[in-house]
């Protein structure tokens, strides 16, 4: 199955800007460990993964029924305001994804399967 993994909130972690350099590099090591664990795990492939810039940089685009486009400043909803990054990965099942994600910093994470719409 293919999963979108959203790092939606700091959870038990200190917000990134408040972390000391040591804390930040410890967190970076964990991201590296996650990459490595995915590479080593059979049946798992990390297809994409990016960190997101701050919520102030986000833009919401809405298109009305007449086709008029309106842009608004900021994220769509409060819940994704704290979203720091995402992964797209291929994995056999939910348990494997959860097991791999345990090496990451203790963020709140949403794990969402994708649907295959290719015909």
């Amino acid at each position: 199955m293919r999963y979108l993994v959203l790092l939606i909130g700091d959870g038990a972690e200190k917000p990134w800007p408040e972390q000391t350099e040591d804390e930040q590099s410890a967190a970076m090591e964990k991201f590296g460990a996650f990459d490595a664990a995915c590479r080593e795990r059979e049946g798992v492939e990390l297809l994409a993964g990016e960190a997101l810039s701050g919520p102030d940089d986000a833009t919401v685009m809405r298109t009305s029924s007449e086709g008029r486009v309106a842009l608004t400043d900021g994220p769509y909803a409060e819940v994704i305001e704290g979203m720091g990054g995402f992964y797209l990965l291929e994995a056999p099942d939910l348990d494997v994804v959860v097991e791999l994600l345990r090496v990451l910093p203790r963020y709140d994470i949403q794990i969402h399967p994708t649907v295959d719409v290719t015909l």
Partner: protein
Amino acid sequence: MRQEWGRLVALLLSQFRRLDLVEDALGDAVEAASRTWPADGTPDNPAGWLMTAAKRRVLDRLRTEGVAQRKLPMLLTDAEHREEGARTMADSGSLVEDDVLRLVLMCAHPALAPEAAGALSLRLVLGVPTADIARLFLVPEPTMAARITRAKKRIVGAGIPFAVPDAAVLPDRLDIVAQTTYLAFTAGYAPGTGPDLLRADLSGEAIRLARVVLGLRPDEPALVALLALMLLQHSRRDARVRDGRLVLLADQDRGRWHHDEIAEGTRLLVGPVLAGPVTPLTASYALQARIAAEHATAPTADDTRWDRIVGLYDLLLQVSPSPAARLARAVAVAEDRGTAAGLAALEGLEIPSSHRPAAVRAELLARSGDTDAARAAYDQAIAACGNDVEREFLERQRETLG
């Protein structure tokens, strides 16, 4: 048939990943059996017959779904597992049991809501019909059917595996199996709402579920402690209600307790499995079971060792503090050290939307002769009580205040 249900579901799931098809196919096979066996005679290997019939139905369905022959292997689990399955069918060794464990762990997966996990376990592992599960959980049958369907869809959609997890996670997962089982048990043992004081058949099913898992993992401390706890509580079922009325522990006819179950429960508690270090959940079950055992083994209510029970509650509150345990401890304190000590132990104790703290306070106030305060506490308890039998009991108690 019911004993074989979980094993057959597990075996079919190990060969086809389609949870939706597997259960329907097995249902159809059972239905066909009920039509043909009375006329043709029961086959030598009834489970094998059902398995073959159900498999044929799954394959039929896959074909009618337009799945071309070349795509069929994709719907089967990996070849390795298929071989395992084939071997299992031949020698009926322990691999079948692994499949049942996979099924149990899938039904009680932490990514499922606890009520859904309980209902799904009764349906898939024990083969309890959906109509009966609905009755046991006091919801209309369509509601329960929808809940079970949603849970099954979620298993497929979220990618909840039919697998035994890594040894590092397995104890946690078995703890969740135990919690799911106990949730089903308490839904039957102490229904919060409705006309019945207890629904012993649901509690009985929960005990059966624990026995299935223990059949696979006999040395799992959480399940051993849980089975002991459930047996010791369940053993009193026939004495807890008389003529539709609640009978307090002290007034119960101890001859009507199931002493074989008490013996089994106490034997489990002293066994080697619980002798070593255990998880907080296991410790909490074991302590509650020891408390139940103190009651169950006292020859008369007057012989109850309330001092030991208070000590066990003190330990329980260290391992797993809860308002319900504090309340029960206050009752024990009142018996052991007197009404005033019991009332002091109740100080500041509240359980949201529960009538029990007020009911206990009322009883203790009545004993201490403070009739007015007792009446006020009974009023409070009666207003908060959602169970018909218990409310009637409280009303009678209030009347006897005079």
